[in-house]
C-alpha cells in the first residue's frame, strides 16, 4: 500500500493511501472534534463537526469520510470552523432536552465535553422542548430519546458489529428517532441480543445500562432530611 504525504495544520504528515483525514490527524496527534464517528464502525459523515478546510476545494469536507491525497493541505482549525462547530453543538442542545444536571452521563458525556471544549457558554437559539419519551421496557437497558443526538452509532454497532439489526432510524427531519425492530418497545424486541454495544457506543446519556444507573443514583435518605431541614436550621451557612 502506497503512502501519501500532505500537511495538516502546516505539519507534514504521511498516511496510507486509503486512510481518512481523520485517521491521519489522529495518528499525528491532531484532535478533530467528532460525534458520529466511532472507531470500529464505518463512518457516515452526519454530525458535520469534523469538517475541515482543504486548500483548493471550495467546500468544507468531513474528515471522517475524506481520503487523504498527495500534497493535500488540510486545515482542521480556523475561526470559521470553530464558529460552525459551536453552532452545531448549540443546535443540538436546542433540538432536544439536554439537561446535564439530571443526566446519567453527566461528566461522562461527549456532547457535554465538546460543548465545553468549543466554548459554548450558552445557547443562542430558542429551545424547542420537544416531548420525547423514555423507553424503559428492556430488562437491562433504557433509552431516553430526549438525550439522543441521532449520531446512529447504536444503529451501526447493532447491525455491523453485533449483526442483530435491532436498532434503526424512523421518521424524518426533526421527527427522526431511534427505534427497536419495527418501532416497538425495546423490551419486546425479539432480535435484541442484550449485548449492550449500543449502550457502550452512545456518546450521551440516551442509552444507559439500568443496573449501573440505579447504583449511581442510590438514594441517601439522610441527605433528604438535610435538604428539607437545613434552611430552617441555617445549616447552609457553614
Amino acid at each position, binding site marked *: 500500500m502506497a503512502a501519501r504525504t500532505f500537511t495538516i495544520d502546516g505539519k507534514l504528515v504521511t498516511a496510507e493511501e486509503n486512510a481518512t483525514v481523520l485517521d491521519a490527524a489522529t495518528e499525528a496527534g491532531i484532535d478533530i472534534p467528532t460525534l458520529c464517528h466511532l472507531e470500529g464502525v464505518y463512518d*457516515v*459523515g*452526519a*454530525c*458535520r463537526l469534523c*469538517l475541515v478546510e482543504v486548500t483548493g476545494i471550495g*467546500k*468544507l469536507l*468531513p474528515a471522517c*469520510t*475524506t481520503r487523504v491525497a498527495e500534497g493535500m493541505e488540510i486545515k482542521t482549525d480556523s475561526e470559521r470552523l470553530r*464558529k*460552525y462547530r459551536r*453552532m*452545531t453543538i448549540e*443546535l*443540538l442542545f*436546542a*433540538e432536544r432536552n439536554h439537561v446535564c444536571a439530571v443526566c446519567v452521563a453527566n461528566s461522562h458525556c461527549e456532547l457535554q465535553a465538546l460543548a465545553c471544549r468549543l466554548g459554548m457558554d450558552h445557547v*443562542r*437559539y*430558542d429551545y*424547542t422542548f420537544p416531548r420525547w419519551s423514555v423507553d424503559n421496557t428492556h430488562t437491562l437497558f433504557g433509552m431516553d430519546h430526549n438525550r439522543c*443526538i*441521532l449520531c*446512529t452509532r447504536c444503529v451501526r454497532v447493532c447491525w455491523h458489529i453485533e449483526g442483530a439489526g435491532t436498532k*434503526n*432510524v424512523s*421518521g*424524518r*427531519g*426533526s*421527527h*427522526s428517532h431511534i427505534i427497536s425492530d419495527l418501532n416497538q418497545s425495546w423490551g419486546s424486541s425479539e432480535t435484541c441480543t442484550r449485548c449492550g454495544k449500543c449502550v457502550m457506543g452512545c456518546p450521551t446519556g440516551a442509552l444507559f445500562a439500568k443496573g449501573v444507573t440505579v447504583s449511581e443514583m442510590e438514594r441517601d435518605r439522610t441527605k433528604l432530611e438535610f435538604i428539607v431541614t437545613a434552611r430552617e436550621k441555617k445549616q447552609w451557612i457553614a
Partner: protein
Amino acid sequence: MVIDDLMEIAAKEKAARKPWVVRCCMAAGCMSSNSRGVKEALDRAVKEAGMESEVEVRGVGCMKLCCQGPLVQIDNEKPGATVEVTSVDHSPLYEKVTPEDAASLIGTLKGGKTSVESADPNQPFFTGQMSIVLANSGIVDPERIESYISLDGYDGLHHVLREMTPKEVLDTMIKSGLRGRGGAGYPTGLKWATVAKTPSAQKYVICNADEGDPGAFMDRSVLESDPHSVLEGMAIGAYAVGANQGFIYVRAEYPLAISRLHTAIKQAKQLGLLGSGIFESPFNFNIDLRIGAGAFVCGEETALMASVEGKRGTPRPRPPFPAESGLYNSPTLINNVETFANVAPIIRKGAEWFASIGTEKSKGTKVFALAGKITNTGLIEVPMGTPLRRIVEEMGGGAPDGGTIKAVQTGGPSGGCIPAHALDTPVDYESLSKLGSIMGSGGMIVMDEGTRMVDVARFFMEFCMDESCGKCIPCRAGTVQMHHMLTKILAGKATIRDLEQLEELCDMVRNTSLCGLGQTAPNPVMSTLRFFRQEYLDLLQEDTLGPGATNPPQKTVPAAN
C-alpha cells in the same frame, strides 16, 4: 427486431391514419378536469355522426396550456402528406371542453359551428416555444408504442446500436453541450464518459423521476406524454456507458406516469426494443420501475440510490460519486427525465444542431412549469437564454387581473426569487446563479404584489424542514431554527439581532450540510433578503425601544404555491 420491422410498424401506423385526428389531452392536469369523460363523449359523437372511418379520437399527452384544460385540438391531414407534424392543418386549441361540447366539436368537421372557446395557436404562449423534449407531447398517443415509432421513435437507438461505437455516442453527447436538466447543470457527456471509463462488470443507468419541487410538473408531463422518449434515451445512455440494467425512480404521487411507464416498458419489451440482443446487436438492456414513497430528499442522487436498494433514503457524502460507485457500489449513470428525453433528438439530428440552440454555455431548450400568479399556467419549452421577461410577460401573459409581477421564483426550495427589475436576465445556468437562484428542474412560480416575500421564504423553509431526512445536524436542526426565526419575524416579535442570527445560520447550514437539500435550503431566505430586505426590516421590532413600541403584528397571507 431489425430496422425493416421498425419501418414496417411506422408505415402501417401511417397507412392506418384517418384524415381527421381529434387530439384530446389525457395528461394528469386535464384528466383532473374530466378529460376522460370528454374523450369518451368525443368517441360517442364520432360514432353517432357515422364518421368512424374518417375520424380518430386520440388520447394524447400534455398540450401545454394547462390552466384552460381539458384541451382538444383537431388536425386535418393534407392530401398526400408524408410527415405528420408539419403538414397538417390544426384547428384552434379548444379550451375547457366538456363532454356536452363533443357533438358540436365533431360537427365542425362537417362545416358546423361550435361555441367552445378556443385559444389562438399563434399567440406568444405557443409561438415563443421551441420543442425538443416536448416535440411529441400532445401529438403521440403515450399508450401506443406504434404512435411513437411512426414519429421516428427508436430510430436513434437503432442508429446508435448499429452505426456508432460507444465512444462516438459519448463524443456526440459532449459535442452537443447538453447539461443536466435536474438543476445543477453538470455536463451530461462528461458524466457519461466518467461512467464509461470506470471499469466494472456491472453498471447501471438510473432515471431520476422523483420530481418534488413545489410547483414543478415538467417531468410528470414528459413521462405522461411521451414515455418512450425517456426509455430510448436511457437505452442510448446504457449503450454508451456499458450498462445492462436501468431503473426509473418515479414518485408514487404520479400514478398516471407510473402506469404509462409500465405500459411503455411492456410494449418495448414485446417488440424487443428492450431486453436481450436489441436490434440484433450484442446489446442487452432492461428497465425496471422503482416507486418512491414520497420523500423529497430521494431526488438527491445518493439518497435515491439507497432507496432503490431498499434502504432508508438518506444521502451519503460524495465522493465517491455515483459515476464511480453508485447503485450496489457499481458505476451508475444517473440523469433526470428531461435530460434523457433530449438524447434521442440529439442522436437523430446531430450534436451540431443541438449546440446551435441556446447560449454559449447552456445549450438546447429548457422546459418550465409556469405557475402562480400568471395568466397562462402551463408548460413551456424555450431555448436557453430566453429572457425571463419574455417567458412571464409575453408568453405567460403577465399577472392576471392587471396585477404587477413582483418576483419570479425558480429552482423550487433550492432556488431563489428573482425580482421584477431583473426580469431581463436570460434564462441560463450561469445568469440565474449570479442572481442567487438556480435553474433547478424547471419550476417557475410567479408572484405578484400581493405576495409577501418573508412568507415565501418561510413557506420554502417549512418545506425543507419537513423534507429534511434528519441525518445531518445542520439541516435537521438548522431548518427548524430558521423556520422558527422566520415565524418570529412574521409575528413581529423579532429584532435586528434575530435577523443577524438568521443570516449567520443560513451561512452555516449552507456550508456544513451533507447534501444538496441542506446546502440549498437557505437559498430562498438569502435571495429574498438580498432583494427584499426592507420587507424583513419592516417587520422587525425596534431593538432599542423595547417591546410594545413596534409595528403591530401584521396578518400573514399564505405563500404562493
